[in-house]
């Protein structure tokens, strides 16, 4: 099902299933998801792939190309937030009622330029539930714009929560005195993370990862561990296992093929890692899921 809904307040929601797609455009602040398959975004020299366990933030005015090249149809879902809706949300979030009542007298309100860290974030927690509910209602033709905007408002709350967890809380862990240094290092570490998210099925060397993140290898390893409490390799294995789990659940590909598709070299180490992470073997996981479906 494909639809694009423009609400009266100019928020836009797009949902569609497609096999190939290519577009270059300038967007409002928007959040992009995929519910199956993967979609690749080119922003300048960066290539970012999103899957159903991650989402992408695009700032207003960003030029990008989006490409779908997938054997299975890709279900895309995107929300673009109108400037005024976003500004009202931020004002309500940041200022107390008294300040909002004197909105014309307060020089700080309404002048905040929002620029978010334009990268891949994990699609998790309340955002996952609320976006799925919203999509479920829209797929069934929901017309009530008040309810749709209620969901959009909550999606922003949920996004800010993830932003806070992924940026500020992790920046706090870095052993630097200056706050601006912490934020800048974290921004570069997020580049490393997006590279791992997008190229998880390739052989990635530490040197190319460090170069992409504009950090030295030593610096990358040290700060990555400080911020995320794991090494880049451990993070990569985690993504591979998650994507393998998704393929086991949603496709009929043989396990050996999935091992190669997600970038593992050896089936036995894949099975060992899978069991360690999910307390079951890949085959049992797939069988259990099949029984549930029936």
């Amino acid at each position, binding site marked *: 099902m494909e639809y694009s809904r423009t609400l009266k307040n100019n928020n836009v929601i797009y949902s569609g299933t497609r096999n190939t797609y290519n577009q270059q455009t300038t967007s409002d602040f928007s959040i992009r998801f995929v519910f199956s398959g993967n979609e690749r975004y080119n922003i300048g020299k960066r290539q970012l792939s999103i899957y159903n366990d991650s989402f992408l933030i695009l700032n207003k005015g960003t030029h990008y190309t989006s490409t779908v090249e997938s054997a299975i149809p890709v279900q895309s879902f995107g929300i673009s937030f109108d400037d005024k809706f976003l500004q009202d949300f931020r004002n309500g979030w940041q200022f107390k009622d008294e300040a909002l009542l004197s909105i014309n007298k307060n020089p700080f309100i309404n002048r905040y330029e929002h620029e978010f860290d334009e990268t891949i974030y994990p699609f*998790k*927690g309340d955002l996952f539930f609320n976006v799925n509910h919203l999509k479920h209602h829209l797929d069934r033709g929901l017309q*009530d714009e008040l*309810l749709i905007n209620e969901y959009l408002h*909550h999606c922003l709350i949920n996004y800010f*929560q993830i932003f806070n967890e992924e940026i500020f809380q992790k920046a706090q862990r870095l052993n630097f005195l200056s706050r601006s240094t912490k934020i800048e290092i974290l921004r570069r570490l997020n580049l490393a993370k997006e590279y791992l998210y997008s190229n998880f099925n390739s052989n990635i060397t530490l040197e190319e990862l460090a170069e992409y993140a504009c950090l030295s290898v030593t610096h990358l390893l040290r700060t990555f561990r400080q911020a995320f409490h794991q090494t880049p390799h451990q993070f990569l294995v985690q993504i591979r296992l998650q994507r393998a789990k998704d393929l086991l659940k949603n496709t009929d590909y043989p396990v050996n093929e999935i091992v190669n598709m997600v970038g593992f070299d050896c089936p036995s180490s894949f099975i060992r890692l899978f069991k360690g992470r999910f307390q079951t073997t890949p085959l049992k996981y797939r069988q259990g899921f099949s029984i549930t479906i029936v």
Partner: protein
Amino acid sequence: MKIKYIPIFTEDIESQVRFFADNLGFEVFDKKNILASQECVVMQTTSPDIFILIAKDYGYGNKKCSMVVSTDDCLNDYHNMKTAGIKFYNEPQYTPTGLRAEFIDPSGNRCLLIEERNYNSLT
């Protein structure tokens, strides 16, 4: 929406649990923070979908929650109930167990609408 939890407030949780276990055959099922910021003992009743919540009585009088209604989409039900004129104490709030909002019935009883979310299922 369906009734899922019936709260029972007591000053002595242990003896209340024993009473339900010994006399009514209910079993301790779990411990959860369903009610505001206090851990409750969840007891399975003989109806598979209905549970008793045993919580500490802090002397809130008639402000205590009298029923917990479970929903699979709290925002949707909150919006529809509000549109129908039902008064809510608060906007939906996020807690470690899920999304919740408290409303009041025409007799002044306080009821909790909750969408329990299994965040661990996403990892």
